Structures are given as structure tokens and as C-alpha cells.
């Protein structure tokens, strides 16, 4: 076995017992105690648990048997003296179960006849068993003075004897199982902290797991090293070292740059672990079937006629929720945008009259030009003494020259569009000097100015948009970090297998979505598609943070390629960057809405997910389907072939141990 080079021992522990009496009705064997060794093997990529009784090293006549009633048994030479004391000392650190073994009495099993030896070996092999971890349904840890484990396989008829750890080691075994699958597929059952559930590893998961093992990949090991749970567990390092050795092969290797980059990103974007906390201090991870993803239909853009039909004689917008739903479902005709965007962005109140809006515009025009005059009237000397203004100005000038220059509105030299873009950004600096100008803002302004064709209106619409996006551009970029963590949470719910893959490639922080999130897909889509996507997102339908589901929708379409090609950190970043201008907005919106409905129909959503999507605060999305005259827009239900998801994952910190689990 060990001579087979393809078999690697990840964990091994001797002194693991089977108590045949408790598993067997055969009264004759009630006092039998089978001793053997338990191993976890990596057999050509498959993880195997193997139990083997000790070979014929034990004379059957010397078999140890544990009596249930110690008073009725012959004392075995179990002395509390020197030898066991020594053992105790050497193993005490992590063999807490050892204490009780002193209290267990042993006796010699009544010697049977001559054929015992033969029977014995027969008997012994009877207790040997192996199974692939992928066949495992659950492991239950029980304690009766000592610890024993009960394994349940997916095949219900195959029952295995409980393994008793009289000499300790159960914790290490479980830790090892947990470590191996911490990013793959073991979990603790939600209702019973002593029971571990093991999911079916699908192909992609097994694949990524194999990669972890075979690629001389350090990331898992590095994570282990960092994991406080690992480091605080006494005696654990010994076991961990087996894994280290098994993973790293014989040579010391350099850490790969992508891992270092990922580690640093992890420091910059904290909170992935904490964010998952459902109930502080307790790990609850259950599988919830997300169900099939509904297919949705989209509609034609809202026409100018439709728009005016939603106005009362004084110009108030009426039936606003319906209006928003129509806009969500199909966007706006370009002719309506100039008017409608002012409402969608919040510059105009929906219930304002035409007169009120005219008054508002007059006030806002004054306000705008007052601020514009401020930077316009700064003299050269003043500017020389104002480095921040100088820096903003310099960067705005550079960026205006590099924003949407192929668009007619901004192309060529001395295009008035360029001057407007510049002036509005400069005025925004005076409006919010603390924030000033940050790269990316010109991307957010450009489509608004293009639609408004008016400096003042564009400025105030931009101000409204920036209110939503402000945090993303602040000094600490907290908005970006929050969004990345939220996206990660959603992706784990939707597609744990893919998320695990990304994690295994040091890409769990989803840094590659940075540009998507900072400027809301502005660089990913054609200009016209950006207009469509933005107006859809500004309806705040069908849920809060819909743009994160747009990310999920795009990733859903790319995951197959990413995993099949086995892309690493750099390749994933490159692949995502290069999606720019190759995406189909309608396909994305279909999928994103489908994902929203899929998640929404799921019961027992993790609190974190409901919070991100706003399901527990308001019912903005529920009236979406209600308002449709029939459910006909849901054409068909289809199982997403690629999705490994339909799993619900909640994650909390248990003893600080990050455990990813599915059941």
C-alpha cells in the first residue's frame, strides 16, 4: 500500500478501536475490542479513509477487551504507574481523552481454541474498511468518556462500525477532514454541532481540489498557517505538518507572486470572513435548494407617449411604481431620457409639478454658476498656493481628454462637449472639495452629459449619481470594499463551486470586478448599452444592489471558461478585463433578473444575503411579478446547466475557524 507511489498518507493514527458488540447482535463478540489504524489517503487524487485492524501482531489470546462493567472483569495489567504516566506526558498536549483510559478496565479475552488464529485473521479483515470521502454523508462525533466517530455513507445500506479513539486522535482526525475540505465540501450540520455533513463533490469541485493538492499549490497551506484556529490548536501542528509535506513535495518553494498579491488584497479588503457571521460564534451552514432559475422576458423601451400618459395635467408623475417597472423591464426610448433621468436620479421629485420643477431649475442654475465662478475666478497665484485644486485641475484636464473620445459628443479637438465635461467636473470639485476629482468620475458624468445636453441639468444629475457612488471614491474606498464583500457573499450563495474555484486561485476577493463596480460597467459595455443598463439600475428594481446581481450574471456566463481553462489569478484578471465591449446587455439583464427571482423565491435565505438585496426591509421586488398581468413573462423554468449552485450557504465563525460547508 505505502509502496504504491500514487498513494499518499495525509493522516495516520493508530490505536483506533472498533467495539463489535455495539454494532453487532452477536452476543459472542460483545466483549471484543478491535484495534487498528485509521488513515486518510490521497489515492491518485481521490481522498480515501481507510481503517485497518492491526495485522497479526496481536496474539488473539492477548486481545484486549473492554468490559462494560469494570467490576466484573479481570484486571488487565493496566497500571497507573510509570509507563502509562510517561505516555500521558508525551501525549497530554492533545490527547485529552487519555485521562479516561486509566479508568477503563481491561481483561484478557477468554482464550479460544486452536483455530482461533485463523478465525482471527478472518475476523480482523472483516473489520477493515475503506471508503472514499466523496461517498461520505456525515461524521458524528460522540463522547462517552472517550470520543468515537460514527460514519454514515450516502449508500444507506452500507453501515460502518463506530471508531473509538481510546488513545485520542479523534479531534485531529476531524480537524484534518475539516482542513481538507474547508474550502471544498465538508460542513457541520446546522442543528447538531457534533455532526459533520459532507457534500457530494461535483466534478468541478473535485477538479479544484485536485489542483490544490497536485499543483504544489501553497495557498491552502498559507491559509492554514494564518488561520488562528489552526495556530491556537495545541498539538495540531504535528498533524498539519503531514498535510504540509503532502502538499509541498520535497522542495521548498518560493511563494508565488499572485498569492502574495492576494494576501495583501485580503488585508486591504477585510471582512470577508466576518461578514458571513449569522450568529456570532456559531457556525451554521446548511444547504438550501435555490431552485431553478426562472427565465424572464424583457420588454420594449418606454415610449414618449407612455411617459406623458404617466403625467397628470400639472405635470406630476403618476403611477410611479408601474412606471418604474416598465422602465426596469425595457429601459427608455432615447427621446424620453433627457426628462426621465432627472426623476430616476432624484434631481426632480416624482410628485413635483411642472411649475415647481421650473422653479427648482432656476434655483439650481444660480447655485451652479455661483460654484462655477469660484474656480473660474481663482488667479494663477492663488492656484500656485493651492496644490489640491491644482492637482484636481491637472487630472481633470488629462482625463477629459481620455474619456469617450470616439463618441460624437466628445470627439475631435475643441469639441464643446469636452469643455462642458471639464467645467462640470471642476465645479463638482467646488461642490465637494473633500472628494474633489477622482479617476472614474469622468466616466460617470459622460453619459449623463450626453443625455442632458445641458450643463446645469447634467451637473445636478451627476451630483445625484455621485450621492449613490460617493463611498466608492472616498479616501478609503470603503464603498468598493463593501461591494466586493457583498458580491462575494452573493456569489457563494449562488455558486459555491465557482467561488471555491476562485478562492483556490487566490481570487476570492474578486478584485477583477473592481472596474465594473467603480464605474458601473461603463467601460464594459457600448455607450448605448451603458445608458440602458444605468436607467434600469436607477429604478431600484427588482431589488437593492441589483448591480451586484449583474456582476453575478456576467460571472455566471464566464465561469465555465474560467474553470475549464483552469485560469489562475492573472488569467482571471486578464480574462475579465478583456470582456470589455464583448458583453450583451439584454442577455445580462435577463440573467440578472432571473437570479434575483431565484434568490427571492428561496426560503430561509441567510440574513446577510437578504440584507444586501433588501429583502427583509421592503418589498420592492415582490410587486414586480404581481403587477404583471400574468406570470406569462416567466416563460419557462430551466435548470441552469452550468450552475453547481442551488446551495445555500451561511457561514459564521466557529472558534474562529472558517468552515465552508454544504450539506
Amino acid at each position, binding site marked *: 500500500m505505502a509502496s504504491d507511489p500514487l498513494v499518499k498518507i495525509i493522516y*495516520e493514527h*493508530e490505536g483506533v478501536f472498533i467495539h463489535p458488540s455495539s454494532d453487532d447482535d452477536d452476543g459472542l463478540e460483545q466483549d471484543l475490542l478491535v484495534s487498528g489504524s485509521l488513515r486518510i489517503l490521497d489515492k491518485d487524487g481521490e481522498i480515501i479513509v481507510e481503517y485497518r485492524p492491526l495485522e497479526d501482531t496481536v496474539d488473539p489470546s492477548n486481545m484486549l477487551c473492554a468490559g462494560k462493567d469494570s467490576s466484573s472483569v479481570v484486571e488487565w495489567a493496566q497500571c497507573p504507574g510509570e509507563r502509562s504516566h510517561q505516555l500521558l506526558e508525551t501525549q497530554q498536549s492533545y490527547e485529552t481523552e487519555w485521562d479516561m483510559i486509566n479508568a477503563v478496565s481491561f481483561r484478557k479475552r477468554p482464550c479460544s481454541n486452536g483455530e482461533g488464529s485463523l478465525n482471527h485473521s478472518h475476523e480482523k479483515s472483516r473489520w477493515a474498511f475503506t471508503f472514499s470521502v466523496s461517498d461520505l454523508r456525515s461524521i458524528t462525533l460522540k463522547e462517552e468518556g472517550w470520543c468515537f466517530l460514527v460514519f454514515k455513507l450516502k449508500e444507506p445500506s452500507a453501515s460502518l462500525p463506530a471508531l473509538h479513539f481510546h*488513545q485520542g486522535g479523534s479531534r485531529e482526525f476531524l480537524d484534518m477532514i475539516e482542513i481538507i475540505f474547508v474550502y471544498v465540501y465538508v460542513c457541520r450540520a446546522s442543528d447538531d454541532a457534533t455532526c459533520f455533513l459532507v457534500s457530494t463533490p461535483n466534478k468541478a469541485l473535485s477538479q479544484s481540489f485536485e489542483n490544490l493538492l*497536485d499543483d504544489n499549490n501553497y495557498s491552502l497551506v498559507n491559509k492554514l498557517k494564518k488561520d488562528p484556529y489552526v495556530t491556537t490548536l495545541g498539538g495540531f501542528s*504535528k498533524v498539519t505538518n503531514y498535510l504540509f509535506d503532502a502538499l509541498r513535495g520535497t522542495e521548498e518553494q518560493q511563494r508565488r507572486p499572485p498569492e502574495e*498579491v492576494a494576501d495583501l488584497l485580503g488585508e486591504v479588503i477585510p471582512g470577508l470572513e466576518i461578514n458571513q457571521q449569522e450568529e456570532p460564534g456559531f457556525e451554521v451552514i446548511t444547504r438550501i435548494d435555490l431552485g431553478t432559475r426562472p427565465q424572464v422576458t424583457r420588454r420594449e423601451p418606454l415610449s414618449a407617449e407612455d411617459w406623458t400618459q404617466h403625467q397628470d395635467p400639472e405635470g406630476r408623475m403618476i403611477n410611479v411604481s408601474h412606471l418604474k417597472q416598465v422602465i426596469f423591464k425595457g429601459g427608455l426610448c432615447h427621446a424620453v431620457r433627457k426628462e426621465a433621468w432627472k426623476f430616476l436620479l432624484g434631481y426632480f421629485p416624482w410628485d413635483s409639478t411642472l411649475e415647481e420643477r421650473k422653479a427648482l431649475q432656476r434655483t439650481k442654475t444660480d447655485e451652479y454658476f455661483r460654484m462655477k465662478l469660484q474656480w473660474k475666478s481663482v488667479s494663477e497665484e492663488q492656484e500656485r498656493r493651492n496644490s489640491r485644486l491644482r492637482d484636481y485641475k*491637472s487630472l481633470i484636464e*488629462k482625463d477629459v481628454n481620455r474619456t469617450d473620445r470616439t463618441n460624437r459628443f466628445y470627439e475631435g479637438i475643441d469639441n464643446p462637449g469636452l469643455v462642458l465635461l471639464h467645467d462640470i467636473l471642476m465645479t463638482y470639485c467646488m461642490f465637494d472639495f473633500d472628494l474633489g476629482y477622482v479617476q472614474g468620475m469622468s466616466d460617470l458624468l459622460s453619459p449623463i452629459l450626453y443625455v442632458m445636453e445641458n450643463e446645469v441639468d447634467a451637473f445636478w444629475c451627476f451630483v445625484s449619481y455621485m450621492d449613490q457612488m460617493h463611498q466608492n471614491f472616498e479616501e478609503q474606498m470603503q464603498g468598493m470594499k463593501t461591494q466586493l464583500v457583498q458580491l462575494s457573499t452573493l456569489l457563494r450563495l449562488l455558486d459555491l463551486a465557482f467561488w471555491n474555484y476562485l478562492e483556490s486561485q487566490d481570487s476570492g476577493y474578486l478584485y477583477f470586478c473592481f*472596474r465594473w463596480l*467603480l464605474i458601473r460597467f461603463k467601460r464594459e459595455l457600448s455607450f448605448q448599452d451603458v445608458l440602458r443598463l444605468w436607467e434600469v439600475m436607477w429604478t431600484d428594481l427588482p431589488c437593492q444592489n441589483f448591480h451586484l446581481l449583474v456582476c453575478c450574471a456576467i460571472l455566471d456566463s464566464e465561469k465555465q471558461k474560467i474553470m475549464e481553462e483552469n485560469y489562475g489569478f492573472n488569467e482571471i484578471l486578464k480574462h475579465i478585463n478583456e470582456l470589455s465591449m464583448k458583453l450583451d446587455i439584454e442577455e445580462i439583464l435577463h440573467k440578472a433578473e432571473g437570479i434575483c427571482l431565484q434568490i427571492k423565491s428561496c426560503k430561509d435565505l441567510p440574513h446577510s444575503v437578504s440584507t444586501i438585496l433588501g429583502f427583509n426591509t421592503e418589498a420592492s421586488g415582490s410587486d414586480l411579478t404581481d403587477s404583471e398581468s400574468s406570470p406569462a413573462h416567466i416563460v419557462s423554468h430551466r435548470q441552469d446547466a452550468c450552475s453547481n449552485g442551488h446551495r445555500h450557504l451561511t457561514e459564521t465563525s466557529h472558534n474562529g475557524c472558517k468552515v465552508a460547508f454544504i450539506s
Partner: protein
Amino acid sequence: MTTKTSLLKVILLGDGGVGKSSIMNRYVTNKFDAHLFHTIGVEFLNKDLEVDGHQVTLQIWDTAGQERFRSLRTPFYRGSDCCLLTFSVDDNQSFLNLGNWKKEFIYYADVKEPEKFPFVVLGNKVDVTERQVSTEEAQQWCQENGDYPYYETSAKDATNVAVAFEEAVRRVLAMDERTDHLIPTDTVKLHRKPRSAATCCS
């Protein structure tokens, strides 16, 4: 001698708008777009080349230059073999900031021996007529800061771009004859050590 390909990570740093992306694109695709978008986030391109008989794959990283993006830019400095400090000759401030970029790089890339690390300095946009930084000034800075090679480049008309990258590669190869960058083209499967049966307690 067997053919070996070295993967070298090179990073372009410098103020926003000095032309980092344009230099990268000129070198890798031999194209120039005066109205190229400013970089958001981090991008990279690969380029294969041969320098003095060495096959090299250059992985050229390009980042957003604005201060605000520092925390999400600096992690990518790790593992760089060379840093191209870039300024624009028509922007004196970008020249004055070179020292800050160098400092930021050394700190975040966790460079062990900063005085030995191969920096190359690029003064871009030499095609423009209104210079704010003279060649002498720039050369002097390079001399005083570690005797870095200095190239006056133009991504627009391709002046000195390839030369600068090749020099960067030479610098890396010359000072760094470590073999750990050299990845044999025939990949070797590293086997995990088969473990002998170990016992954790007896």
C-alpha cells in the same frame, strides 16, 4: 543548453496621465491611441521577446496612477522584477513625484535590497514641444538616485520604447542570475513526496 523562458514581471508606475498605458500598448501592440481611456484598476499585457539569447516573457503591469487608488494598486507590486518609473517631460510635477513612486514601490513590493533593485526611468512624451523637464535634470536625478538608466520615450511615435523595455530585461538578467525565474519549457511535474507511514502517537 536547453531553451529556457523567463517570466519577468515589470511594473509601470508614475502619475496619472504620463502615458503608462500608452507605453505598454505601443510596446506590446505597436499601436498608439491618443484618446485611450485612463486606466481604472489594474491591467497587464504579455510580450515575448529575446534579449541576448534569452527567451523572455515580459508581463507588463499597468496601474491607475491617482493617489486615491493606492491601497488597491500596491498589492500588485509584489513579485516585480523591474520597475519602470515614468514621468512626462511636459509635466514637471510628474517628474518631482518620481521619488515618491520609487519609495512607494520599494515599500509595497517588499524589496529586500532596494539599492540593487533594477529601476529604469522613462521620460515620456518627448514628441511634445513644450518641455518642462530637461534631459539634464532627469539624468541628474537618475544618477543621484541609484544610477538608473534613463530613456526619453514617446509612445506616440515609438521613440525608445522597445529599447527601454529591452534594457529593463538586461538589467534584470544581469543582476539576477537566479535560476528560480527560469522555467524550463518542458514542464517538470513536481511530485509530492510519498510519505512513509508515519505515526503520530504510539
